[in-house]
């Protein structure tokens, strides 16, 4: 918790600018498999850690980029609160900075919001080595462009995240997991029907004929929903959702490239061969397949979604290619934050 750890990082970025060398930002290195190949001189954020401010009645926690995700999760849990976007950690070493920079969200995402939705403010170092603050610790803030959210999921290519303020939510009083046996098309249709009505569904998964759903809410609310939805109650719900989130479920141990495919929830069963696991009421589809990237993306484009090569395979084009005009905006933004290209260059797209 050295008070100079931020200054050290700032100095390191400035030096990198002077020397014109690329930096590879590292937290707990739990997500170095994700995106394009990391390259550049490693620079660790780990020493810049610690919770800066946490007031449960404000529903806001502020912590430094190098703080372990597990530390944050256990501190908020003491006050019966949670990071509602359920970020996957992929290892106990995961840091808050890496979590926000990769922008990944877990099972609860479609029902409460994503990492970006809970990000209220940041302190960051841009590629010029400048120490900047955007957003804040309040729920609503429209002063200036929403740079905080822009940084979520930017894979460290726009700035080093020094501090992050997140909105937290109360832990639901009761959670219960139900199981249904049905075909995939039926499962998709059913989930979309459920989503048309208010319900306390907070996670879904579908794999090989079995749909799991999680209900979250007050005792009466969950009971009423269960009576309405039917299904069979299972006891190992907590472990099930944890395994899905952390990719420890046996689906993920199959060999072959793993694709993360994001589509509108009403998209039909994908016309791509492979082994699939569905989440987010059908809006997120994990696929293990050797089908060529181009074919997958052509199919997913038609549905209005995008496909990320999540693990394995050829990382060169891990992220879905952008439309020309959008790519140009990415280049311009990269230049606006990191004109020398010292921050994780090429981690997302070539030249960005």
């Amino acid at each position, binding site marked *: 918790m050295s008070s100079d750890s931020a200054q050290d990082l700032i100095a390191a970025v400035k030096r990198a600018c002077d020397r014109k060398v690329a930096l590879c930002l590292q937290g707990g290195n739990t997500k170095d498999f994700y995106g394009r190949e990391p390259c550049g001189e490693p620079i660790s954020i780990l020493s810049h850690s610690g919770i800066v401010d946490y007031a449960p009645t404000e529903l806001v926690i502020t912590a430094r980029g190098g703080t372990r995700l597990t530390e944050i999760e256990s501190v908020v849990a003491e006050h019966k609160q949670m990071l509602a976007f359920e970020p996957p950690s992929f290892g106990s070493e995961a840091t808050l900075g890496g979590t926000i920079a990769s*922008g990944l969200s877990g099972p609860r995402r479609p029902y409460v919001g994503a990492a970006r939705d809970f990000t209220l403010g940041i302190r960051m170092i841009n590629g010029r080595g400048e120490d900047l603050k955007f957003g804040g610790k309040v729920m609503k803030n429209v002063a200036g462009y929403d740079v905080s959210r*822009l940084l979520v999921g930017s894979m460290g290519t726009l700035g080093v995240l020094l501090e992050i303020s997140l909105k937290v939510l109360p832990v639901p009083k009761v959670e219960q997991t139900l199981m249904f046996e049905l075909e995939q098309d039926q499962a998709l249709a059913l989930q979309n029907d459920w989503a048309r009505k208010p319900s306390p569904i907070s996670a879904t998964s579908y794999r090989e004929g079995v749909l799991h759903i999680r209900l979250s809410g007050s005792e009466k609310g969950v009971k009423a929903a269960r009576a309405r939805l039917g299904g069979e109650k299972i006891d190992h719900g907590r472990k099930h959702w944890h395994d899905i989130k952390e990719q420890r479920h046996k689906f993920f141990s199959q060999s072959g490239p793993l694709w993360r495919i994001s589509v509108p929830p009403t998209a039909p069963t994908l016309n791509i061969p492979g082994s699939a696991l569905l989440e987010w009421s059908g809006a997120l589809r994990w696929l293990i397949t050797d089908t060529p990237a181009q074919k997958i993306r052509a199919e997913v484009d038609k549905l209005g979604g995008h496909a990320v090569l999540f693990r394995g395979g050829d990382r060169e084009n891990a992220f879905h290619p952008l439309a020309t005009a959008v790519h140009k905006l990415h280049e311009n933004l990269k230049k606006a934050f990191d004109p020398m290209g010292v921050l994780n260059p090429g981690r997302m797209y070539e030249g960005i």
Partner: protein
Amino acid sequence: MSTPASQFKEPLESVRARVADDLRAVVAAESVLSDIESLRPYECDGLSAYRKLPLVVVLPDRIEQVQEVARYCFKNDIPIVARGAGTGLSGGALPIENGVILSLAKFNRVLKIDAQNRTAVVQPGVRNLAISEAVAHLDLYYAPDPSSQIACTIGGNVAENAGGLHCLKYGLTVHNILKLKIVTVDGDLVTIGSDALDSPGYDLLSILTGSEGLLGIIVEVTVKLLPKPECARVIMASFDDIEKAGNAVGNIIAAGIIPGGLEMMDNAAIRATEDFVHAGYDVEAAAILLCELDGIPDEVEDDIESVKVVLAQSGYTQMQIAENEAQRQLFWSGRKAAFPAVGRISPDYYCIDGTIPRRALGSVLNKITELSKEYGLRVVNVFHAGDGNLHPLILYDGNVEGDLEKTELLAARILQLCIEVGGTITGEHGVGMEKIDQMCVQFDSLELTQFHAVKEAFDEKRLLNPDKAVPTLHRCAEFGAMHVHKGQLKFPEIERF
């Protein structure tokens, strides 16, 4: 940094005539307004203290026409100010003398409703409430509900990241949209976001939302729809002390409850609205809280019980739960009519939008009372307590010499106070022209420079709503010379003049 179009060498009137003629080649002749009387209605937005006539007003009705207008302006270095319904409260749609007002008013159609996917594709000029009305028969609605929802447009909502009475639970505009089509400064049509829950690359949807017309012209919006809550109930509680009411807000949240709406009014607001709508408010209370719980009936029942306990522990003096829908509407009627009610007791009022951490509610409200006395201006407080978004209304009389200036000074003091307690100068109304100087207090020169760099990534020539939302460093230097903050110069590196 001057506005590029200020380089016109000919007189303004002949420029006006020429630009109007040129634009009539792009859109129907009657869709270009250039005589002074027709320009008048566009000279201000909801912040009527600031007025300026635009060069011309153009009202295209097809995306290609917006592109053509943008290309023309780009080529000729003419600034463009996009305009929705003009209900903005920060002068965002305030015209620029040598710039075009591009009104999206004719883009007023709901293009597609996808009930199963719970989305709607709408044109930017569609009114906020019209979206919910268009999908009501499907038991769906669009959640963000600014008080201006009968009038304001979804394009304006996106440009301001508008909030509403229910954003603590349901989020702001940024949480409730999926995709935008924008026309860039040079006339390209670009899709931002997608029909899926997330999109590849940077979160451009976030940077566009709340960008106040400075980064692109929004020409289509895909919004998320939510199922209507099956039930909503409201509790009204009075307190004899404003600080107690403020603490009650934090206590409700600490108890693990996120109400659909959590609003507060101080005594001045209670009296003004009670006189106006006769909602049965407790006019003796220092403050009342309106706490709405919504969702599935069993859940709401549980929450009502918990909130009752918390309110008791927080020391209310009276409490009432609406027995039926009519009473619920009645409880809300005063809160919803707060602005017009205040309009009845004062010739003019000025609405502020600072947001603070909830824990500072009591102390900030007390401080505002002191400031109100110091400046001799009445202040009425009605606000979104759940998310700490204050709306102090300063009452003044524009016909009294010096009253507006005094009001602006008081407003600046209140905003400064919001920053000091760790808050922000604007929670939902935007910076526009109005709060541009306070931006110099909230951000330092490096941060402002970074904002300008973002602007340039989208609009290198600075033609889209230029000189709003983000102040130039020169402007801040001039402002700083007048208002030295805590004895420190905020912009020491800039020459003063």
